[in-house]
């Protein structure tokens, strides 16, 4: 450690540091970044999933979002959409870099928050809710589409978080929820459903909009959504099917019919198709697809105009 670094560490300015860290994230490709109020997170997250459960001396949770889909991706049929599964890696790369940036610049521990399953808490339960971090950090608000977070400018993003023992001033959640968009409200008034609710292929979304055009209720059948778009149940199920098959032909079909064989392929190469959601709800969502900076084309136009 050089003398300059020591000097920087002693003259620590929390506002400056926050700006430097968020600028780092934005400079590396995040569209939005913010700091979540740790106290709020600790109160809202259930025990075992609070930031301090992972990092006992955590002082700040930084959340960042990267652009979800390109304009082209929203326009291609669902057949192709089913295979977009690696977008989130971009968010993780930036947050990983940010943790390095914090430690090297401020000599304070930081971690890239693991996005994975919680080994102790069982299947389909994450270690931390990245969604909660982002929402409290003010870079997304829950939508009627199964609580997918939306941003009024960037639309739909993928999120990642960094925990650090550096004490940074927190941001506030968004003052307004951009969902439902005005066109969704008028559709709801006419047919009783919003676009995401109408076009979900398994009809797992429902809810109500109040007189003021705000979200009143949101209901999400996550099981149905997961069933159509994720395949983690498929592997053991097809092994069980194969074991229960009456004869050799039945076993052969259970293991090697085209659907199942595709699954083995995805597993062996680690294809993102295993983890995709269908995102038909987002494809028809005016905020996800038409927010002013929702895709690279819109963003580069805006940049050129500026």
């Amino acid at each position: 450690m050089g003398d300059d670094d020591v000097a920087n560490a002693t003259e620590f300015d929390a506002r400056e540091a926050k700006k430097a860290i968020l600028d780092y994230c934005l400079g590396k490709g995040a569209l939005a970044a913010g700091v979540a109020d740790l106290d709020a997170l600790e109160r809202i997250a259930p025990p075992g999933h609070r930031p301090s459960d992972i990092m006992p001396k955590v002082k700040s949770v930084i959340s960042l979002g990267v652009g979800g889909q390109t304009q082209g991706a929203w326009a291609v049929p669902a057949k192709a959409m089913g295979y977009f599964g690696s977008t989130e890696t971009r968010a993780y790369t930036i947050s990983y870099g940010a943790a390095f940036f914090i430690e090297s610049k401020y000599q304070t521990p930081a971690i890239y928050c693991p996005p994975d399953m919680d080994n102790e808490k069982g299947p389909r339960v994450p270690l931390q809710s990245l969604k909660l971090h982002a929402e409290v950090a003010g870079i997304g608000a829950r939508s009627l589409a199964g609580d997918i977070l939306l941003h009024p400018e960037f639309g739909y993003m993928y999120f990642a978080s960094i925990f650090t023992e550096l004490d940074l001033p927190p941001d506030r959640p968004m003052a307004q929820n951009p969902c439902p968009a005005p066109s969704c409200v008028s559709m709801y008034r006419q047919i009783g459903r919003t676009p995401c609710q109408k076009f979900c292929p398994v009809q797992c979304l429902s809810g109500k909009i109040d007189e003021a055009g705000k979200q009143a209720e949101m209901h999400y059948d996550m099981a149905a959504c997961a069933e159509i778009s994720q395949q983690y149940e498929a592997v053991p199920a097809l092994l069980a099917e194969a074991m229960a098959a009456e004869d050799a032909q039945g076993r052969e079909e259970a293991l090697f019919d085209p659907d199942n064989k595709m699954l083995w392929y995805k597993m062996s190469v680690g294809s993102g198709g295993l983890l995709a959601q269908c995102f038909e709800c987002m494809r028809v969502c005016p905020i996800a697809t038409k927010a002013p900076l929702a895709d690279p084309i819109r963003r580069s136009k805006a940049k050129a105009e500026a």
Partner: protein
Amino acid sequence: MAQGLNRRQIGVTTAMIDSYGELIFEMSHNKQSRRGDPIRELDFDAIEATRHERGMSDGQIGEQIGLSEMQVMYIRAMMERRRFHTNHFQRLLELGGGKRFREERFTAHEERFQYHDDALALRDAMSFDPARARHYSEQGWWNNDTLSGLLARHAADRGAAAAVIQGETIISYADLLHRVDRLAGGLHGLGLGRGDVIAVQLPNVEEYVISYLAIARLGAVMTTLYMPHREREFETLLGHSRARALICLADAGGFPAAQAALNLKLPKLQRVIAIGEPVTGAVPFEDLAGTSTGADSLDLPLPVAADPMLLLYTSGTTASPKAVPHNSHTMLGNGRLGVGAHQLGPDDVIMSAPPFGHLFGLYALHMSLHNGAANLLLPSFTPPDLAAAIEAGRATALLAAPAHLAACLGLGLFDKHDCSALKIVILSGSAVPEEMARAASAKLPNCEITQLWGMTETQGGLYCRPGDGIEISATSAGRPAPGAEARIGEDGELQVRGSMLFPGYFDNPDANAAAFTHDGWFRSGDLAAQDGNGNFAITGRIKDIINRGGVKYNPREIEDLLDSHPAIAQSAIVPMPDKILGERACCFAVPTDQGGDPEISLDTLCAYLLGHGIAKTKLPEHLVLLDEMPLTPTRKIIKGRLPLPETG
């Protein structure tokens, strides 16, 4: 296992999974609800009050219902395994994209693609030798032509061109597509679909063509009933084919076809669709044809060429009927290759004198649909109607049985009607008398008179080509169709194989065992001889061979002589069992004078035959005079139905 512990160690029993499983599934993140927006608003009271609605963690659920976190985790995982369908993914892919989804049209993936057992059994019968199938595909003889695909193509490329002509009515390809689409939608609305067998008993009218194409559009399978078929044949054929529906006339010339089918109460026959006066219990054809939702707007899956499309019967009444399945490969491939070989083009007007119930009739349709030519319909055959229709419709190609042509010639109809547009006549269905072929050729000098040999099992197997000349086409059935091969077996039997050949009889292993040689050639049952140029002449039926005390001979030559006897209109010689010689020849004859000519007796006929050089051992030993012969729809004598006299 949960955290390294198994079910016994965490104390979960089957009873616990059954008791709490559903509850845990619902309370967990599997079902989530939110009221208002409390997290964004950091309204901590509301967050706590509604926590359970957003889906609870396993620990929280355990606290509420009195189980350990690990027990909840275990039970939840088991319930997810039971409740989740695997590979549901396909449903999403089928929908294609959000903007196409319409809830009201949503049918679950599995349901849309279900074939019932009968349909699967029929598909199972479409089993071709793999090496042959590969060869046919490599040669391009089999491709993915389907009736639906061809119709859609012509409707798009030459929609205004005539597809069907019946009297004054002309249906264009575009209109035909529209009507077929509607009827297919209507049939679908009745619950009929892929793989279902649908029977048709109609004369050659526009509704026949529309029905056939609509059945094909559904991916269903058509089976045909001849117009003379009655209750007995209905019962046998509708029963054996497992037909789910029948399209027929309310009144088939005095026979109440629709009512008769309903009265049979066949277990598989769900629908009778009647054309004509309303019949109680039957669905009016017009209602289906006028359906507003067509097959295309319903997004019904398109058939493919390997799907079975026809199930045809070689006879209406036997105890174990021979059902011949065909798909688009065998049928449309042969039709497409036939178009080239017969030199037909899109501007031709093709007419079939035989009924569509017979495959030779459908051959006309298959060829015209290949290149978008017009089909000229003859609802029912009489010689004057045939000649008048050829003239009025300017038919350029006629498919007919020799008897059809002979009748027109006999009545001098080609002198009375202008049939000069005809450029080809394709004769098939029974032996072609050489003299008749020559006479027809003389009457229609600008028209090729050709012969075709085919069976329900083969469609067009052998034929003469335009340009062969009358010497060849009056005396032979020509050469194998493109994609076909023919050879003569040791017993003189014609054997064929090729891309047009059916895969084997449906649900009749005995017939299959007898029908194919060990190396996969189909035994036609016909006797043939081949000339030096490769042309095959059909000389008789193997079954007709008479074995008189070890002396075997083919009676065809004698029949031909008898047919040219001035007092005989038609003759047939069949073997009759004999205790001493095994078999003797019995001659059946229809005299020209229906009252019975005193000149016709066994003695006079034998003298006539001896005078023409026939050996004594081949002379008939019995004579039976008949008013008329039992005939097939192509006017071939059904020898099996001739009444053999009782003898010692």
